[in-house]
């Protein structure tokens, strides 16, 4: 791609040659007083300019088309084929990523929320039993109390077995819920590749446009757009490489305490 851009940096040699020839002819005809011929030559000159522009734009359109056509996921499994065949553009794909990650997060949290109270109950019962057990060891327990403890310990062993199974199964389902990473990873990689390609095509468009600007003598006034941070700009990537961005909670705390918080 960079070779391609370099190749377009100057005008095509035959175009330069044509321009040079026509310019010489134009000089000749103006000096010779042949104004009709001069006008025709000026028109031809601008035709050359237009044509090289059309050629460049045509080339760009073709490469963009190719990029979009290439943006298809090779379905490896039947399941993916069904899911992915319905998606035709990058935003659909990204929406699919949001949906998959949200499903996985909710499934994981469902299982965690089911498991937490079980772990809690187990712990509470173990604490009670341990206290009773200490009393038994200190021989502070009446026979009736011991019979009750005996039953309770038996029930506890049963529930430990059952609850450990439940928690184990939840953990293994949580593990499986992470399979979204494979699918979303593939989708994001495809979208990233498309964005990169489009970026490169845009760059060559900019280079081409600068040729046209050179030919027409156009100068653009480009204003720096000041993006307002008030609405929020989302997470910062490469925060550690930037001065205006904090790289973690410690930075936030330092900044706030420097402000007197």
């Amino acid at each position, binding site marked *: 791609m960079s070779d391609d851009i370099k190749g377009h940096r100057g005008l095509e040699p035959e175009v330069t040659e044509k321009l040079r020839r026509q310019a010489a002819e134009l000089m000749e005809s103006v000096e010779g007083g042949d104004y009709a011929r001069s006008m025709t030559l000026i028109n031809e000159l601008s035709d050359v300019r237009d044509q090289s522009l059309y050629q460049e734009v045509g080339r760009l359109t073709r490469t963009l088309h190719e990029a979009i056509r290439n943006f298809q996921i090779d379905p490896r499994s039947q399941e993916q084929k069904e899911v992915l065949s319905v998606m035709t553009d990058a935003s659909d794909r990204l929406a699919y990523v949001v949906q998959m990650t949200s499903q996985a997060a909710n499934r994981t*949290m469902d299982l965690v929320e089911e498991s937490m109270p079980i772990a809690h109950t187990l712990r509470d019962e173990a604490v009670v039993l341990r206290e009773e057990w200490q009393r038994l060891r200190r021989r502070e327990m009446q026979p009736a109390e011991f019979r009750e403890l005996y039953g309770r310990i038996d029930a506890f062993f049963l529930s430990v077995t059952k609850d450990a199974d439940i928690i184990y199964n939840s953990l293994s389902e949580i593990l499986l819920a992470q399979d979204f990473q494979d699918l979303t990873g593939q989708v994001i990689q495809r979208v990233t590749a498309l964005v990169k390609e489009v970026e490169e095509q845009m760059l060559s468009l900019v280079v081409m446009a600068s040729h046209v600007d050179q030919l027409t003598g156009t100068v653009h006034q480009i204003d720096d757009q000041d993006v307002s941070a*008030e609405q929020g700009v*989302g997470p910062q990537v490469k925060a550690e490489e930037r001065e205006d961005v*904090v790289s973690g909670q410690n930075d*936030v705390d330092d900044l*706030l305490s420097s*402000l007197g918080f």
Partner: protein
Amino acid sequence: MKILIVDDFSTMRRIIKNLLRDLGFTNTDEADDGNTALPMLKSGKYDFLVTDWNMPGMSGFDLLKAVRADEGLKTLPILMVTAEAKRDQIVAAAQAGVNGYVVKPFTAAVLKDKIEKIFERIQ
């Protein structure tokens, strides 16, 4: 202690809700942006607000300013839990009267620490 959690992602609301429950705060409500949150705050007698910054509709920063500008709400403690990490933004939030600022991704310990600090300062 009644707490309102404002975030446009239900996953994040759920995480914060769970962490708050572990800290002993069980009375929580949820809203998905400032526009839904503000009427709830005005009618709901909340003691604490946890809000994200970047949300469609009304942002957390606008919500912060709206709360501080409201006679009935202006003393409500506000903790911002957000991915917004620009220094300018944090300074702006502090100047607008935020009580704490937690940057995502965060840990349960950080959230606990900031909430405790806020209540220490209030009492």
